[in-house]
């Protein structure tokens, strides 16, 4: 089965992103295809490579990156949500005159159309938020 996952909350504040990660991992381990994970609203904060949680805590960002590397996941941050919250890739830095980027590897920034496409292309859309 083809699945799409939407994450509406940032890491560490709500359980939503933990739930989304465990669900996505379980689906992949069962052999399902995850067409895309779309990060919306505060969910875009899952995509900064600059987080440094304590060593005895889970690293939510790296966990997504590792899952994406293993299964070639498409991790997409909503561009409008990313701009508001200071999530920047090379393209955004150039377009908006920013002096740095902070996007984690395997993540990309794109539009809301990517969520709609994921919903159309997938058999199910599963939403995690607060």
């Amino acid at each position, binding site marked *: *089965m083809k*699945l799409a996952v939407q994450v*509406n909350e940032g890491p560490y504040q709500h*359980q*939503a992103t933990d*739930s989304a990660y*465990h*669900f996505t*991992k*379980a*689906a992949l*381990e*069962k052999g*399902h295809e995850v067409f895309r994970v779309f990060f919306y609203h505060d969910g875009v904060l899952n995509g900064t490579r600059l987080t440094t949680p304590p060593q005895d805590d889970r690293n939510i960002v790296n966990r997504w990156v590792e899952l994406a590397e293993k299964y070639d996941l498409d991790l997409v941050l909503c561009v409008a949500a990313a701009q508001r919250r200071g999530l920047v890739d090379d393209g955004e830095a150039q377009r908006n005159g920013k002096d740095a980027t902070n996007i984690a590897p395997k993540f990309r920034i794109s539009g809301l159309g990517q969520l709609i496409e994921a919903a159309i292309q997938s058999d*199910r*859309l*599963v*939403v*995690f*938020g*607060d």
Partner: protein
Amino acid sequence: MADLHTVNKSPFDKNSLEAAIKFSQAGSSILLIEDGVYGAMKGTSAEAMVKGAMGDKKMYALKSDLMARAIKDDRIIEGVTVVDYAGFVDLVEANDKVQAWL
């Protein structure tokens, strides 16, 4: 048409479980996750509502979220099925749509 409804809030915090029960059609499944698992506990003011819903709907609760809140098997309302994340995935597959009551 069978749909899966996910509820992630305690029934003592928000009315999303009540809304999910009222709006879902007969034959639907309701999965309690995160703080939603408090709705699966015996002996609370929400028990009658949950038991009533099980007349024509199936109730599930996520094992790891129950364990994280120290809700052991003997404190769970009879008829509520405990599933792990793989079971969550199976429920998503078994139903036509998934509605998150955020």
